[in-house]
């Protein structure tokens, strides 16, 4: 599961564009549990890429975002446990989280028309710049 590198590049690019030369004090990255991102690999990749680009970041913090799904047909809300999901299904969802619609159904009514309320994938939760100087 080493495709995390590609996503780390996206984050680095984003941070660079947003920072516009300012040092970044702190970066908080939210990891949606649905995508089963490997935190160590992502962190390793991100630090490598940032170094290559000469981008200094004070600290990087990762927080897990719980998976909450809500059925649009019956309103039922549930929190699937990704640990109990078949390995091959987990891997499919790891690459493209929307594969979830092929494998999950509402436990109450059987509908596949549900919303990912939270916990889909990687997102940047917070980025604090050091405005004092370069």
């Amino acid at each position, binding site marked *: *599961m*080493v*495709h995390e*590198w*590609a*996503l780390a*590049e*996206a*984050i680095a*690019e*984003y941070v660079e*564009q947003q920072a516009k030369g300012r040092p970044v004090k702190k970066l908080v990255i939210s990891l949606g549990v649905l995508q089963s991102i490997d935190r160590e690999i992502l962190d390793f*990749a991100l630090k490598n890429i940032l170094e290559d680009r000469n981008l200094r970041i004070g600290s990087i913090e990762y927080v897990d975002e719980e998976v909450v799904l809500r059925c649009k047909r019956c309103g039922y809300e549930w929190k699937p446990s990704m640990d109990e999901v078949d390995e091959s299904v987990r891997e*499919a*969802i790891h*690459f*493209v*989280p*929307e*594969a979830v*619609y*092929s*494998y999950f159904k509402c436990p109450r009514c059987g509908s*596949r*028309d549900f919303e990912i309320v939270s916990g*889909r*994938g*990687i997102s*940047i939760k917070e980025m604090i710049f050091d405005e004092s100087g370069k």
Partner: protein
Amino acid sequence: MNPGSDPRLLVIPQRLSGVKHIIPVMSSKGGVGKTLLSTLLALAGADKKLKVGLLDLDFTNPSTHIVLGIDPSSIQPVEEKGVIPPIIHGIKYMTLAMYTGENPTPLRGNAINDAFLEILAITRWGELDYLFIDTPPGLSDAQLNLLTYLPSRIEPLIVATPSPLAIISVEKLLRVLIEGKYRIIGLVENMSNNRKLLMIAQKYNIRYLGPIPYFKEIDNLIGNLEALRSSQFYGKIIDILEKIIYV
């Protein structure tokens, strides 16, 4: 979404930087031959030793793998700082069906958008002469993603049949493409013996890439590469590919 607001959008240009031509095969009307055309154009390109890719963007009804005669759950991309498409019959091939198999994939627009950004952000196509893209019918998220996120990269190839239902539909698509100043590669008239759509091509000042007749037997050849390659249909595909290559 604001351009720049999603990190994935920022790496997509890089991922496609080695691709010389991105050719989505488009038509708002369903069943006019988009899937057959995009898949066989890619195959014909590979047969010609061109570097080609094929991307299936018909997420809710992927079918390029059926034309290629493969079980999508049996293929796997290689992971290397992203995802390197598996090579099928000489084609670098990406489809959501690799992950979803033959399960249904009901996706609302937002999910189509997310899956698009995810796949384009992680796929490393490397060097390609042509990336053919199969698109679904309609004019919604799948098509708008291409027009909105890759406006200066795509060179749409339009397909239609001489049915009044397809003509009216293709004219609307052409209007959208022309007002948005997209480079249209040309118009293919499929399942036709006449050149009824030549008029449409002239009206919108786009290249007419000729009619492909209705070949009764084609459905029986789907999935059988050797049979497809020796069909009359394939001969027509090669003609069209050559017109695209030698502009």
